[in-house]
């Protein structure tokens, strides 16, 4: 029973840790499927986290905070689009520039406004997204096995966790069953085919970036107003890059994105618990090793050991009509 409770608690943490990864990876999916490299996920998420925490602190409403996070993230996505699509700049340079600017600007502004060393004030419970109990969670709690799974694992999360899970089938639907999805997949593979079909390559890519920006904004707001109760300097801690790794690992497909993010979240959840634990034969596993595991897995995948990850063919190349 001890082990079961332990397992439920690890899986519960897995869900909470995977949520920002799922949202950010889906955001990256939109950008990259349309042909734009999205290494700026990290910066957009961080900016959204800062904007959401600041706004929630001032207004006392997590929803207004969420809105502010989405707006800031979309604006940064548009900036990225302006550099990469309109002016055919280098996608990686533009993305890294966004990451760098945000990493410096957010704590600087935070410090100027709140004088708490770059942090934002700790949010009251009503200014945060807190856990919501699903119907009957209380009543079913004592049912053996299923009870704890329902009331502890499935119920009791904040709304954004459910949004992230629901976003996966929604994104899959948009990608594979709608006109927008078809065109977006096409523009990431062969923009010339889209252009000659009479569709604007530029506008299509901008729309993909806007959708991605909104999802990334939710991911950022989750970090500072749901998972934590304030913005902290560098609080994304590489989650944007991890989401990008998950996206590659999942070969740019929505359902594998969910599974990969859950795997990465699971590794993160076990890391704290496994630290210092002596395993037979192996000995103590360094926590750093488990933290590095997602990146190691991605590199192994990219090296072609676990099937090939073929990116959208036109990714990273600005579209220029040829003579």
């Amino acid at each position, binding site marked *: 029973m001890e082990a079961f409770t332990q397992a439920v608690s690890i899986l519960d943490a897995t869900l909470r840790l995977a949520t920002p990864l799922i949202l950010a990876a889906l955001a990256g999916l939109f950008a990259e499927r349309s042909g734009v490299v999205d290494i700026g996920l990290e910066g957009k998420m961080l900016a959204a986290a800062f904007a959401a925490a600041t706004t929630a602190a001032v207004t006392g409403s997590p929803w207004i905070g969420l809105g502010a996070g989405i707006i800031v993230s979309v604006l940064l996505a548009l900036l990225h689009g302006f550099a990469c699509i309109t002016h055919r700049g280098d996608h990686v340079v533009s993305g890294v520039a966004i990451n760098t600017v945000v990493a410096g600007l957010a704590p600087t502004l935070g410090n100027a406004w709140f004088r708490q060393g770059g942090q934002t004030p700790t949010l009251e419970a009503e200014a945060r997204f807190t856990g919501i109990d699903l119907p009957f969670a209380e009543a079913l709690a004592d049912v053996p096995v299923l009870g704890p799974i329902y009331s502890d694992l499935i119920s009791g999360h904040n709304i954004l966790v459910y949004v992230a899970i629901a976003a996966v089938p929604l994104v899959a639907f948009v990608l594979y069953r*709608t*006109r927008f999805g*078809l065109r977006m997949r096409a523009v990431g*593979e062969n923009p010339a085919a889209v252009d*000659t079909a009479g*569709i604007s390559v530029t506008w299509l890519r901008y729309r993909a970036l806007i959708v991605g920006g909104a999802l990334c904004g939710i991911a950022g707001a989750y970090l500072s107003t749901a998972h934590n109760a304030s913005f902290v300097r560098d609080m994304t801690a590489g989650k944007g890059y991890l989401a990008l790794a998950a996206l590659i690992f999942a070969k740019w497909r929505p359902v594998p994105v969910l599974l990969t993010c859950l795997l990465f979240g699971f590794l993160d959840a076990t890391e704290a618990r496994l630290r210092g634990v002596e395993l037979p034969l192996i000995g103590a596993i360094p926590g750093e090793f488990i933290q590095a595991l997602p990146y190691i897995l991605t590199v192994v995948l990219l090296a072609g050991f676990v099937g090939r990850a073929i990116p959208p063919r036109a990714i990273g190349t600005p579209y220029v009509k040829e*003579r």
Partner: protein
Amino acid sequence: MVVAAADGGERAPAVELIGIDKRFGAVHANRNVNLRAEVGSIHGIVGENGAGKSTLMSILYGFYQADRGEVRVRGQRVRVTSPREAIDAGIGMVHQHFMLVDPFTVLENVMLGAEGGPLLARGREEAARALEALEREYALDVPLDGVVGELPVGIQQRVEILKALYRGADTLILDEPTGVLTPQEAEHLFRILGALRDQGKTVLLITHKLKEIMAVTDRVAVMRRGEMVADRETAATTREEIAELMVGRKVLLRVDKTPAKPDRPLLAVEDLRVVDRRGVERLKSVSFQVRAGEILGIAGVAGNGQSELLAALAGIAAPASGRILIDGQPVPAGTDPHAMRRLGMAHVPEDRLRDGLVPPFEARENIILGYHDDPRYNTGPLFDRANIRQSCLQEMQAYDVRPSDPELPAANFSGGNQQKLVVAREVERDPVVLLVGQPTRGVDIGAIEFIHRRLVALRDSGKAIVLVSVELDEIMSLADRILVMFDGRIAGEMGQEAADERVIGCMMAGVGPEEMAPEPHHVGAE
């Protein structure tokens, strides 16, 4: 020009282009071009590479905007500023490089841009039904659920045709459609085009292959250097007439030279074959020799295997089979261009800006390209910069390169001076054999004469020269012996004295000297 349509003559033409003019910077791609294509006909547009055919069709399809002129579809003036407007006007285009999304199915490719609503489900059913009907009607034979990237090229092309028809195209433009096809696939394509014409569609067929023109078109328009030089009924013209119109008669440049004194063979080519990436045989068992003190000219309409021959000789493309001997010594298989140069094979490439120079590099850097490990340019592991500069300056003066500034980037010289830089580099290395491709393309008259004199001087010093040019005049005046290439083979050979422009023109068009009468109008197999 009064043209009667096949059945009556009252209907407005399917497409009319009037006074189209287009410049790309200094390049005048289309000069006051007129074209009139009747409903229910196949209209061929021929011309050499760079004659302006593709530009003209891209203007019709809304990819580029003409600087001047107008487009009329069925008598109505239309403004085509984007492919969307061309599609709406009933114009479809099959591009030379297919505009397909490889990981998509055929159905998804056809639907792209014509999905029939924000959700795909309904449109997909409708499209599948409509496509099956179209396929039956035109014998297109395409698997709708097949992934495009896994289909053979011939079928991919039919997907493009299907795409255009599904969008309601009445006029179909095909840009060099047979370049990537096997003869069987080309036959199938021509049958489809025939069916389209019979259904009242109009086909504009861009090509530089005269056999196709004679076989499938009703009319043929000829372009040269951006101008429309002729528009004839196919039945009333001949291959050799079209070949002559394509190449054009220019002022014959006389080159002062003494008769050649050919000595021992310096270059021998035996049964050389080249197969391109798509598996198409570009060079079909070519054999010849070039002797010391001789210029061998290779004539032909562009795209008949000359480029592949040069690439194979220079070591750029690996031959599928055959042997190359330099001064009697066989060249080992897999010899790269650098090793080829060390064996004495110098190369002035056809496209100097792509293969001959690094445009942003300075002249002194370009003048040692490919010879940079020559001991006289190096002191130990470092370049001897002073010496490189000095010899660059000398060569610039000897070849009258203006301005003679070794520090000027190659891109900043005029075309003629760029070409003189390349010629200087290759000739001054004292090669055994010199390969020269299109030495005077885009070069002014003065530089042409200079380069010709240099080539003759190199010949007289006992070297062998292979000259590939699409300018027949250049071949006739410079070469001591002429080979004509057609369809990857050597179609004929003659000495300079015996050279006759008409005979060469026929060979370039694939007509043997014994059958120079016009061919009957039919779909011909090889």
